[in-house]
């Protein structure tokens, strides 16, 4: 089995990167290859990174309340590139009532505050195909 390559991305303008960095480190410690985009990325930049890195999954960390604008845009751009085998997850302050809509768009899982890094590692292992 090849090593899983995961892009951890911070779309939008918020600078809350504690969660993204913890997840990036936990995935790396679990043996995955992690590409952290850094802050303030546009959906276009993120999709570009996913393509360039040939990633198996992308985790979007958003704590600005802009998830219903930014996540659909990332998914749309991925689909526009013919990419449908990359697992998309979202983490951050996402109200419960937005989760069904995000999943309908094609987001595999939404991790809200309090999710354990182990659960996230397990989820990526189970769903991303190397």
């Amino acid at each position, binding site marked *: 089995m090849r090593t899983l390559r995961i892009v951890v991305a911070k779309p939008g*303008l918020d600078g809350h990167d504690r969660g993204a960095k913890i997840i990036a*480190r936990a995935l790396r410690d679990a043996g995955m290859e992690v590409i*952290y985009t850094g802050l303030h990325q546009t959906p276009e930049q993120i999709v570009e990174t996913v393509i360039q890195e040939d990633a198996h999954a992308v985790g979007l960390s958003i704590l*600005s309340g802009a998830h219903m604008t930014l996540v659909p845009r990332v998914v749309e751009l991925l689909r526009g590139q013919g990419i449908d085998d990359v697992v998309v997850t979202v983490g951050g302050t996402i109200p419960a009532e937005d989760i069904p809509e995000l999943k309908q768009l094609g987001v595999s899982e939404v991790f*809200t505050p*309090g999710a*354990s890094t182990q659960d996230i590692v397990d989820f990526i292992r189970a769903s991303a195909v190397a």
Partner: protein
Amino acid sequence: MSTSNYLMATYLQTPLEGWQDAYRATPERDALFTTLSGEPIRPLYTERDLPSQGDIGLPGQYPFTRGVYPSMYRGRLWTMRQFAGFGTAEETNERFRYLLDHGQTGLSTAFDMPSLMGHDSDHPRSLGEVGREGVAVDTLDDMETLFGGIDLGAVTVSMTINAPAAIMLAFYVVAAERNGIPAHRLGGTIQADILKEYIAQKEWCFPIDPAMRLLGDMIEWSSREMPRWHPVSISGYHIREAGSTAAQELAFTLKDGLTYVEQAIERGLDVDDFAPRLSFFFNAQIDFFEEIAKYRAARRIWARELRETYGAKNPKSWLMRFHTQTAGVSLTAQQPLNNIVRTAIEALAGVLGGTQSLHTNSYDEALALPTEEAVRIALRTQQIIAHETGVTNTIDPLGGSYFVEALTDRLEAQAYEYFRRIDELGGMVQAVKQNFPQREIADASFELQTEIDEGRRVVVGVNRYRHDDEDELPILRIDPALESKQIGRVQAVKARRDADAVSATLAAIRETAATERNLMPALLEAARAHATEGEIVEALQDVWGSYTETPVF
């Protein structure tokens, strides 16, 4: 040992030795006996742990460990200052009036992400972010609406706007001026602590060096023109929220503050002309005693450094006055009503630590911006502490506590150890450029998360005492229509102003930015001409460029 020998041994023991033996004979619970920052705590502290009397001192006297004022809360309670902002200036103005009507005594403005990053609401990068995490302020017009009907000569106002602080201050001063209130009557504070942006909050517009210069210009100008204004609130809050320990919050914040002091002195200012108006902003995390000790250590270090290292002679320059906010990062999305309890304990630590003003978080803030009901409970929490608990009856009630004094000393020593390491790297600006504080924080935050994930550190409702079928809480939804409303507001301003006057003021900003002249007069002219925040930031970026972080994790 025979019975008589045993009796003889206990007879010869000091009471402390006796306790030690008895303690060792009792098994300890299987639990972490460390602070939230991972510091080991002994089972008992005694008079041996007290520092010399001089270090504890008295309130209102050097080194101010017990408080900056002689009377503290018997003279005047802390300012209850709830941070608020969402939607357009109109919605936030309504929330401000609501808070003032409910007994709040100062205002604190949260700006949205585009405003923090220097983008106008109609900029493509602002899409989906306008008015979401704070209020959108693009123009002088927005600033006037934000404080409409509020007497700016009578309330104090705090603004959390860092990279573009000088621009927002210009909007604020011109808005007040058009209402007949001159700059010298304005009281309040602006966060403007740019070093902690690169360290922790990560909202920037310019590279570090020109950002430091812009801050220096603002401090210099306001120390001449705004005697009631605190031109920079030096902030540990975001450092802690990014996952730092208490010692890191203390050390990095004070070192940032000392760096601003050094810069102002280098620019030729007399330390006593500006130091009395520097203020601080700290987090109140859930580890009660560690937090109280942190505030006490901060006062002592600041007083000593200002007096001994920087030669400040005015006793007011020695005072570390601070605002406190309870820890957003301690709030849980699970069983959110528990957050009321967490916030109350954190707020109490701030009060017992001698804070000058306080923001209490609302219980629903791990989910969204707070509802009015949640904000009211948060404010009531402060009022209960102030008026019901009796903790305001005496000054620094924990002063002289063996444990609190020992923790205070330990945090002080840890802060000085960080100062030494930062100095070795060439000072704070260099340390930030080398990612030193960023890396220390990332390590600490990962360690704490590991403790929580492994269940060694208990978070109630998250890794223990869970229940899975929780009722959904009604949360504040920001109406998506507010974004187009705000875009309409900024475009209306652009349509009705004198475009030539705007271009001329922006050209003056570019020209001044390339020199060493103070930028504030040019920024005020641009504000008067109704230049937008985004236009002014872009004019400065034309000269200075922007910033991209090399992230560490």
